[in-house]
C-alpha cells in the first residue's frame, strides 16, 4: 500500500532563517505531488504541484519554492522566512489526474 511521510511535524523558526520541509511517498511510482498551506480557520491553498522529476508549477508567487529531486520526493524551501509564512503545510499525492488526493500529516510552522 502507498504511504506518505512528511517531516518535521512541528517547526519554530526565526524570521529570516531558511526553511526545508520534506515529503516522500512510498508504494507508487511517478505520483503527482502537491504542497498546500492551511491557515488557521481557512481553507487549503495550493502552493506548488509537480507531475514529474524537475517539473514544478507554482500557483501562488511568494517567498517559497519547491523542488522534486527524485520521483517520490518533494521539498518545500525558503531562503528567508517571513512572519506571514506561518501556517500548516501539507504534502499530498495522487496516482493520476483522476485519482483523489492523499495527504500527509502536515508540518505546523511558526515563524517568530
Amino acid at each position, binding site marked *: 500500500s502507498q504511504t506518505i511521510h512528511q517531516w518535521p511535524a512541528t517547526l519554530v523558526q526565526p524570521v529570516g532563517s531558511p526553511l526545508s520541509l520534506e515529503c516522500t511517498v512510498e508504494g507508487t511510482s511517478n505520483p503527482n505531488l502537491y504542497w498546500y498551506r492551511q491557515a488557521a480557520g481557512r*481553507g*487549503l491553498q495550493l502552493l506548488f504541484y509537480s507531475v514529474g522529476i524537475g517539473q514544478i508549477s507554482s500557483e501562488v508567487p511568494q517567498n517559497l519554492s519547491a523542488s522534486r529531486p527524485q520521483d517520490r520526493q518533494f521539498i518545500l524551501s525558503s531562503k528567508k522566512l517571513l512572519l506571514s509564512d506561518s501556517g500548516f503545510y501539507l504534502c*499530498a499525492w495522487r496516482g493520476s*489526474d483522476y485519482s483523489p488526493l492523499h495527504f500527509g500529516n502536515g508540518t505546523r510552522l511558526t515563524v517568530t
Partner: protein
Amino acid sequence: QKEVEQDPGPLSVPEGAIVSLNCTYSNSAFQYFMWYRQYSRKGPELLMYTYSSGNKEDGRFTAQVDKSSKYISLFIRDSQPSDSATYLCAMSWRNNAGNMLTFGGGTRLMVKP
C-alpha cells in the same frame, strides 16, 4: 462568489444523530467529488470519492451528488464523538494544465456524548 461554498459551522449534534454536511458549487465543469475528514493538527483523510450523480454508501457514510443542482452532501448515520472533526468537500475539474482540485473551506462538526 467562491467556486465552492461550505458552511463553516460549527455544527453541534448529539451522539447517534444523523448528520448532513453540504457543499454547493458554481462551476458546472466539476467532474469528481470528494469528502475529507480532518482531525485537529492532522492532514485531511479521504472519506468518499465519487464521479456520478446519485448516492454512494460506505458504512455509516453516504455521499450524495446532484449535478443538476450543483449540490453535494455527506450524511453520517449514528454519529459518534469520534466523528468530531472538520469535513472538507473537494471537486476536480479539467483545464489545459490537467485535472485541478478546488476545496471548500470545511465544516467543523462536534458530536456530543
